[in-house]
């Protein structure tokens, strides 16, 4: 069992010794079940850190913010940022390292092992509890979660509440860390990529109709992009931020700046946005599940992005996010790579 005291102790020492600028962790949510991210700067504040099945967020997303912040400072503090990372989160850090977006000494990874469990899917819990409101969820003994509602505590088998990605998880513990809290115990996960089986069995037309219906709900809030640790581009295909304007830029040039995707949330544009994002995640998506969790319309985005992970494995034998010394998928090749699509 991961002891929260060990986590807090590690965090406290790091801050006392000034080894890190601050630590990104989870604190109790102000209202409702899910926790809030917190930046801890002072050693005394470590008491706010929590660790329980509700810690679903991928905190590595905030490493991009840190990089931007540093870029604006004249004499930035060069100490690393501490981040609490689960197995899936650590794989996101591996990708950031592979792509040289951050350096290894920019981040101090406080790895936490999910041990035998994983994290909660809030929607599954809401369905299970129906109208009862959950206040707290804790790890129990014997593969159960202990859920506290107004009516008291109930034990529910973790399997029924785990996030879908946890059921297939292959890295139950961080693959890269500076310190590891908890043990590297393996869990009997489901077959990898099981979540994709249902949709893969559909015909081409059925798949098209499935996505057409799902994406018709999309309101293009871009939460999926904003919450993804891998979407760190300064100018995204949907934005028009960094159009370099000089004194010589004509009005016509400004008016005709290419817009790749129209702002209208119509089928064609929604498809292009989501498919382009999925392609940009090929060999980079670690299935942290944040995109699907953040989507207010509950669009099953995991299916799209996880397919990219599967393609990486099946076509190129590439395991996404395991080895930071490995080059990224799209910037490398092996002699054995398949060539049957080259005519």
């Amino acid at each position, binding site marked *: 069992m991961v002891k929260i005291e060990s986590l807090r102790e590690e965090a406290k020492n790091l801050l006392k010794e000034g080894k890190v600028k601050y630590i990104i962790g989870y604190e109790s949510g102000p209202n409702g079940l899910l926790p809030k991210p917190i930046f801890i700067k002072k050693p005394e504040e470590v008491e706010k850190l929590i660790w329980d099945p509700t810690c679903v967020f991928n905190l590595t*997303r905030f490493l991009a913010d840190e990089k931007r912040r540093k870029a604006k400072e004249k004499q930035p503090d060069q100490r690393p940022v501490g981040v609490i990372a689960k197995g899936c989160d650590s794989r996101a850090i591996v990708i950031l390292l592979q792509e040289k977006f951050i350096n290894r000494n920019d981040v101090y990874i406080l790895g936490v092992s999910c041990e035998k469990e994983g994290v909660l899917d809030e929607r599954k819990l809401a369905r299970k509890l129906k109208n009862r409101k959950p206040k707290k969820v804790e790890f129990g003994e014997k593969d159960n979660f202990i859920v506290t509602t107004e009516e008291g505590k109930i034990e529910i088998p973790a399997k029924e509440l785990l996030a879908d990605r946890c059921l297939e998880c292959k890295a139950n513990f961080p693959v890269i860390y500076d310190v590891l809290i908890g043990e590297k115990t393996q869990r009997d996960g489901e077959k990898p990529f099981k979540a994709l089986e249902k949709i893969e069995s559909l015909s081409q037309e059925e798949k098209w109709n499935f996505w057409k219906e799902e994406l018709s709900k999309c309101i293009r809030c871009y939460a999926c992009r904003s919450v993804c640790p891998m979407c760190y581009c300064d100018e995204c295909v949907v934005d028009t931020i960094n159009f370099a*304007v000089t004194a010589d830029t004509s009005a016509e040039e400004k008016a005709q700046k290419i817009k790749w995707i129209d*702002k209208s949330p119509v089928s064609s544009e929604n498809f292009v946005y989501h498919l382009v994002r999925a392609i940009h995640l090929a060999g980079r998506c670690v299935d942290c599940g944040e995109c699907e969790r953040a989507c207010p319309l509950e669009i099953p985005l995991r299916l799209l992005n996880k397919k990219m992970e599967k393609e990486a494995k099946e076509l190129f034998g590439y395991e996404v996010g395991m080895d930071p010394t490995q080059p990224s998928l799209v910037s490398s090749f092996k002699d054995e790579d398949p060539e049957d699509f080259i005519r």
Partner: protein
Amino acid sequence: MKKLGSYKLYAPRKDEDIWNYETIEDSETLVDLDYQNTIVAPKKIIFPQREIFLEFSTSNDNSLEIREVLPDDKPVVIIGLRPCDGRALALMDKVFSGEFKDTYYWKRRDQATLVGLACNTPPSANCFCLTVDGSPHSKEGLDILLTDLGDKFYAESLTEKGDKLLGEAKGLFQDPKPEDKKEVKKIQAESDEKISRQIKNIKNISAKLKEMFDSPFWDEESMFCIRCGICTYLCPTCHCFDINDEVASSSPLKGKRVRTWDTCQFPDFTMHSSGHNPRPDKASRLRQRMFHKFQYFVELYQNFQCTGCGRCISYCPVGIDIIKVLDKVKDYGA
């Protein structure tokens, strides 16, 4: 439902786990009002996320043709609006009137009869309508207010449009008995007690905010904001928009001028054509949202622009909580 044949009916519908307003096409479908609240506010029916203003094309002789595209002439009934969402439309009405009355907004607004549903229990754990001068049985913005009495609904008409609709559905209603009216009053009083999240007395929040414009408070509060558009797109009163030309072909020229929702939380919202951006960071954008809701709107229209529906709190992916921010503003510097 059959009686409403001449109207287009919008009601909350459940798709797997989520509720959203959709049109009810056939008269056999029952409207299910046993719901909390929809994810996207009903503002999307009066103020759609995509509105075509006009179409343009050039013909063979190179002359430009511009055709205005107005909303359909079909009268609409929206049923099941929560009082906060109804009130939100009353607030949006102020924005789209004044010196310039927005043709598109008002065509849809005038054609719509809004049948609200009072909240016997708060639809969300994050409801706070009472804090912002609303109430779970507010009548503002609505044409009819329904109260669920368990085995029947009590319908109260509030406007001429409401009278007209009730008149058309005459056979479906009976006159209320005195005990029905008593029950309604009882439910209303009880529902006021059930709103769990409240901040007492935020009358001076507008003045307080004004003092805090340059404060580092906003840097701290916006630390975790991930710059998505959830808070603004789900908000029943947010109404900022972008206008773009969507060109289908350039020769011959054919395209549409389209209005779409936009959000002050996207980094390029205030990007000027010079390249300057007066709101370059998250702090200034979060501040903008708070000020627009609780300071600018108060100065312009003497009302908070927030109706306390709680959607921004429930759906923010990183747990930024507008009630907590208001609380901190209230106590700031004390």
